[in-house]
């Protein structure tokens, strides 16, 4: 059906300001989410705290097998990355579909939607990280020089999620069942990411599996820095970097190849 001669040559239909647009979209998300809530940003803090309390209760009082000294903080080190990852992946993946009215009516570059979606989740992430760091300062071991690793670790993780969001938001337009795949994957992740257990209990033959999982790697490194007070292992960091850049590149390519079909399928 597609003849080789078919083409569209577009010069400067949209030569707008990417940064301004993405910033405005992120601000919009943030305002909409919090304007109709009396507690506002507190909700972002309440959810991880409730989960932390719940998991701490179950694994120190019911199963009482938790051996870590700072168990609640260790749990929070797992919850914050996992929450960010699942939410950002989910909303990023549906971003093109959710903005169908804009994709079909405004010649704005399509990739701003998944990117803005992930970045607006980063806003909530910042709030939750602030909470986590505050708790470490007050109840945990306190600050150390290795905190300087945190921005790099998180930047890599966000890059990974951006890649996922690009790829899945495009695929989601073609195959609407994608969201159920993501939902199931996220359920599996809750158990396969060491949220309420430590790396030490994982049998050696399964460790490789955990180390290439970027979310698990992130949890491991957060605990290294915040609880154990040492720098993340170079090998883990390099693996995360490779996986993140790889995923971002893949997402970029997939999105670029599929974006021309959005209009007819939305």
């Amino acid at each position: 059906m597609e003849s080789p001669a078919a083409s569209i040559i577009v010069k400067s239909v949209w030569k707008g300001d990417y940064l301004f647009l993405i910033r405005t979209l992120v601000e919009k998300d943030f305002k909409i989410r919090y304007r109709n809530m009396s507690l506002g940003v507190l909700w972002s803090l309440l959810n991880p705290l409730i989960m932390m309390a719940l998991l701490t209760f179950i694994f120190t009082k019911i199963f009482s097998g938790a051996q870590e000294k700072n168990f609640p903080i260790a749990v929070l080190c797992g919850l914050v990355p996992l929450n960010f990852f699942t939410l950002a992946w989910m909303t990023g993946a549906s971003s093109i579909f959710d903005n169908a009215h804009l994709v079909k009516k405004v010649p704005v570059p399509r990739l701003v939607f998944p990117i803005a979606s992930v970045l607006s989740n980063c806003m909530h992430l910042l709030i939750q990280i602030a909470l986590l760091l505050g708790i470490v300062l007050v109840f945990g071991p306190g600050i150390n020089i290795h905190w300087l690793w945190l921005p790099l670790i998180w930047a890599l993780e966000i890059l990974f999620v951006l890649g996922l969001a690009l790829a899945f938001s495009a695929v989601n337009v073609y195959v609407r069942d994608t969201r159920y795949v993501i939902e199931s994957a996220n359920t599996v992740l809750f158990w396969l990411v060491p949220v309420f257990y430590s790396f030490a209990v994982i049998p050696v033959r399964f460790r490789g599996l955990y180390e290439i999982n970027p979310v698990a790697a992130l949890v491991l490194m957060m605990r290294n820095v915040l609880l154990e007070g040492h720098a993340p292992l170079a090998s883990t960091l390099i693996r995360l970097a490779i996986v993140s850049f790889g995923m971002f590149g893949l997402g970029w390519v997939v999105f670029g190849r599929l974006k021309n079909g959005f209009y007819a399928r939305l």
Partner: protein
Amino acid sequence: MLIDFQNASKCFPHSAGRQLLRTHIARWFGRVRHEPFWALRKVSFGLDHGESLAIVGSNGAGKSTLLSLAAGLTAPDEGQVRINGRIAALLELGAGFHLDLTGAENLVLNAALLGLSKRKTDEVFDRVVEFSGIGEFIDDPLRTYSSGMIMRLAFSVAIQCDPDILLIDEVLGVGDARFQEKCREALHAFRRAGKSMLFVSHAPSAVADMCDRALWLDHGSVMMDGPVQEVLDAYGGRAAMRQGL
């Protein structure tokens, strides 16, 4: 040439809207054979600097598809479309408007979507507010606006963002009589500034007033392309004939 269509055709698969895994698997096994639907067939025309072209035709003639191609929203399946210039497409007034945001916040978001920079947005902000006549309500949430006010705000952003080409899809019925007159004046001023327009409307008077050339589409094909009055006469005659039958 700002916009140049060369034998452009656009077809839509009939399964559109049912993008399920099932559909794709069935296609891999070759079980589904849909006749494609050609919304546009071998359409050729050009739009020059300072020209305004009306697109007329009955419902389903392909007018909106043509505008979508001209706006660079989608690529043709055959032929070529060249676009050269910054386009503000009024295919939908108030793209991205959200009822929970204030008029001012929506204005900025809309301007960013249309491609304005931060500086340019700050520059035109007051002019947009003034043109819209929203006044002090600009800081109230959009859900307190009447639909006329929302349309006025949306139209004001688009006309003030100073594009090279304006694509307009049936939007002149916006607001009250006074605001419509204001829009008409703004569009005429836009034309006098040497800018171009692609204009879709069912109102012959608006078409004749706004454009010097018209293109008549029927079932995705160009029936006629010429001076606006001639095309309107031919199109009107055909419509009358159909009704007579």
